């Protein structure tokens, strides 16, 4: 069964096949000293390295897997991916791999459906590849990075118009349980293009319900059949600690597809909150000193080693664009997971209950959403000359419109100035005309920008201070429907 380096194909659950690549002679160790949460401490080991991968052989041929978290003299502490449930100090043998976990990479992954450790769920043979790489990856020398600057068009107005995604960016979706973040993420996966080309998609599911997984598989069926999609699925009832590996395997596959095979790759990782909880569980079992809300102090660096694997490389064709999806516990954006994510990613798309309640899909709270790379990926020479200014004006006007709405609730709409009333009208227009959209509706960028202009036309001209006279003349719809 489990062998990430791919070995004897198609052998059911019973036998542990001999791996294709083996560096150290495999000595097996049986001196188990301690079992605690997901941790296992084994004694009498020599020559075992930190972060090494290990196989745990249990009675009746079952085998599990682990990573070395600490070595202290002849003791090694392992985190067991499939949990230590049912283990006892006797009857377990550990085989160490001689190196950190590696995975075979290559285009073979496209069109495949696997579990969170990369084992096939689609009835096919184990995935083999053209190269073997460590799943933790290596930091990309920043000097080799090419600053991202080509727009990705998703066909979704709020994103393309107001928070443009850029090839090689990391842009997360912050949501709360119950909102259609997966719908949005899969819509992006299904529709995104850059320079007219579609993306290869690697989808890492962590702790998703079976219903959600079924939805994703169904929605992206076409991409999968076309050999453009890799699915790595760790369901809500799959082993928790395994989630620590899932995004790493996904990103290792993606980096290879991008920088070696020259593809534009989109990696969607959902739900990062489940991932972070797995990290917290290991940390708690190790009795580490927590920083905030029980999460370890290294969560920032841990998340960064995932998110930073996006980008573009000078002189190479491909790119890795990452869209992590996370649910904010209690809708709290200051919770460590969204907070640390926001500190690493290049902006955020925030979904809100309030917007959803107004009947808008996608329910993006545009004022708290931002694509930081939009400034280099949109505007003259990239999308359209008016794009950045229009986006700025739409947002500024919306902020003002919200204030006007609040005031209207207090003093009544009749007591508002004429200007404030025009803002309230603008809000309705922009929400209905621009923000709200069908779940599989693809809009061109020109269409999106025209819709923005149409809404702005509801405001008196002197309110449009962020748009130059030249742009106003060129794009502002005439035939005054202002009254």
């Amino acid at each position, binding site marked *: 069964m489990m062998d990430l380096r791919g070995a004897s194909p198609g052998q059911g659950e019973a036998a542990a096949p001999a791996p294709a690549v083996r560096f150290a002679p495999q000595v097996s160790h049986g001196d188990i000293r301690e079992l605690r949460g997901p941790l296992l401490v084994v004694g009498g080991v020599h020559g075992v390295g930190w972060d090494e991968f290990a196989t745990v052989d249990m009675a009746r041929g079952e085998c599990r897997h682990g990573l070395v978290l600490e070595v202290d003299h002849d003791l090694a502490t392992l985190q067991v991916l499939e949990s230590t449930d049912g283990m006892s100090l006797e009857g377990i043998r550990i085989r160490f791999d001689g190196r950190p976990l590696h995975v075979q990479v290559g285009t073979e992954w496209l069109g495949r459906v696997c579990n969170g450790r990369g084992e096939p769920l689609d009835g096919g043979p184990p995935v083999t590849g053209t190269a073997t790489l460590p799943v933790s990856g290596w930091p990309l020398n920043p000097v080799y990075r090419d600053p991202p600057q080509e727009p990705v068009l998703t066909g979704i107005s709020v994103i393309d118009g107001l928070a443009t995604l850029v090839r090689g960016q990391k842009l997360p979706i912050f949501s709360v349980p119950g909102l259609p973040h997966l719908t949005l993420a899969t819509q992006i996966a299904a529709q995104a293009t850059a320079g007219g080309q579609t993306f290869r998609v690697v989808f890492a599911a962590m702790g998703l319900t079976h219903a959600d997984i079924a939805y994703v598989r169904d929605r992206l069926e076409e991409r999968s059949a076309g050999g453009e999609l890799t699915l790595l699925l760790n369901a809500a009832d799959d082993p928790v600690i395994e989630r620590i590996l899932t995004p790493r395997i996904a990103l290792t596959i993606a980096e290879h597809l991008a920088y070696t095979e020259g593809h534009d790759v989109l990696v969607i990782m959902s739900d990062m909150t489940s991932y972070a909880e797995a990290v917290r569980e290991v940390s708690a079992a190790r009795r580490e000193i927590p920083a905030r809300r029980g999460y370890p102090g290294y969560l920032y*660096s841990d998340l960064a080693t995932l998110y930073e694997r996006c980008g573009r490389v000078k002189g190479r064709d491909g790119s890795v664009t990452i869209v992590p999806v996370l649910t904010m516990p209690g809708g709290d954006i200051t919770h460590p997971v969204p907070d640390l994510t926001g500190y690493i990613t290049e902006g955020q798309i925030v979904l809100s209950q309030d917007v959803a309640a107004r009947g808008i899909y996608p329910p993006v709270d545009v004022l708290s959403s931002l694509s930081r790379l939009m400034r280099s990926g949109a505007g003259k020479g990239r999308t359209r000359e008016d794009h950045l200014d229009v986006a700025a004006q739409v947002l500024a006007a919306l*902020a003002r419109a919200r204030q006007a709405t609040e005031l209207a609730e207090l003093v009544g709409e009749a007591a508002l100035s004429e200007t404030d009333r025009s803002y309230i009208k603008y809000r309705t227009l922009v929400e209905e005309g621009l923000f709200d959209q069908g779940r599989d509706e693809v809009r061109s960028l020109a269409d999106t920008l025209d819709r923005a202009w149409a809404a702005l036309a509801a405001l008196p001209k002197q309110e449009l201070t962020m748009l130059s006279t030249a742009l106003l003349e060129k794009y502002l719809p005439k035939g005054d429907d202002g009254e």
Partner: protein
Amino acid sequence: MRVSGPLVEVEGVEGLSMLELITVGPQRIIAETVAIVGNKATLQAYEYTGGLKAGDVAAATGDELSGLMGPGLLGQVFDGLMRPLSSAPMWLTPERSGSLADPVVLAREWTFNPTAVAGTNVSPGDILGTVPESGSVEHRVLVPAGVFGELSWLAQESRVRGVDPIAVVAGTSVTLAEPSPIRRARPFRSRNTDAVPLHTGQRVLDLMFPVARGAAATVPGGFGTGKTMMLQQIAKWSDADVIVYVGCGERGNEMADVLAGLSQLEDARTGGKLIDRTVIIANTSNMPMMAREASIFTGITVAEYYRDMGYDVVVIADSTSRWAEALREFANRNGDLPAEEGYPANLSSELASFYERAGRVTTLGGQTASVTVIGAVSPPGGDMTEPVTTDSQRFVRSLWMLDRDLAYSRHYPAVSWTGSFARDAEELGAWHAANGRPDWAARRERAIALLAESDRLAELAEIIGSSSLPAQERVLLLGGRLLRDGVLMQNALNANDAFCSTGKAAALLDLVLDVVDACQRLIERGVSATTIEQVDLGPVLRAREECGPADAAAVRARGVEFLMELETLK
């Protein structure tokens, strides 16, 4: 041997001293000695320790962590341990560890132009000669600290490498490049106490919360509030001679962006490229965590090196929180007793050891020069009461607090006028007065008062509606908006607005204050507040983007015209 992430414990290495470098394992990973107990030592490893095993060898080096200081730093990118990234491979694997000295750097040849005279007596800080580099910053080769006496030999104009001697002083040979331990402040003669402003080109700073040369400033702000943008703007536009930009545990794309941005921009003062006055230290968030901890000190050592040549240097550290997290991570693994939020108890003294290396000094060579330190802070959850934020505030002269609400409403730079401070404002006002701007301080005070007053009125208006306020107060409300949107806001993406000269900043502020005064006079004459509120303020609000970056005259001309039109209101 025990290995837990970056923490390595070794046994049986004799004669180690604290801070000494040790290489461990077959890949000769660099580690620093942080604790010694008997024949056991605790090491802080600067690379990924994956695969490190009990039984691997450890070898002491006898050296402390040092950066090689010499010509060829400007325009280049280094990692936190001062290893050039430009000559490193695409993937930063631990294979490249081993020696800190980069062969490419060591092999490079420079032209040495002697300027001192052989046979004379020299002392530390004296200039021996210069080395031309691509930019306009003259590289000066100095007599090192602790070296006195007769200059018995000085190299002719010649091609030399960093390791080559260029002079002999009282029997001591001086090489072109020298290793400088990063954790020790480089010596100087004395600290100066007078305050001279650093012009940052950012209005909200220069007008409201100025920073003096050689002072320290900190920029706390939640994610996306604009710390990096602000620091990058300062790197681009401040009137320092040399910039050291430390990317500490932040994004790789940002480093690429700084590099590309500075390579394109022209240095208005010298005509060269801005990158030629900049040294970049890049230790991104996915690079080994402990090198992040070192990167801050590496940066400040480079800054001191240029200060000693007589230059005004600005060190920018984005973000000091990532550095503090590296400290915490290591302390926790080491089993140190945690104080607040898991940070070690010595957090504030560590922060002090960084910020206190700022200063405007008389160098050993007798020149006036400075190191200004500007550090970003990334408080978890935007919580401004967390330890790194509160501790940093104690050691800085200027605090530029970024406000999430301002940032969300796209008011950039989102510097909060209620939460920020500038402790040297008074002295800097005196400097402005002595340098032809007698009204600088008064103007600043009026602006601060207007902001406070309009904030108070805005709160009131939210409850009762602005139309219920007296006319005079409605004008103040309007004045506050003009000041915020027309002066304090500054668009980093607009060529006219990204940088602002002292003159243009003053003209913009004057324009707003004059408009407020004029409106008050109109009210006195019986013009209604509603009439005034309907005036198109576009010309005032757009002046910052439509007038050139140093075009104070255009702003003033616009003001004259606008005020004349106002006068015609009835």
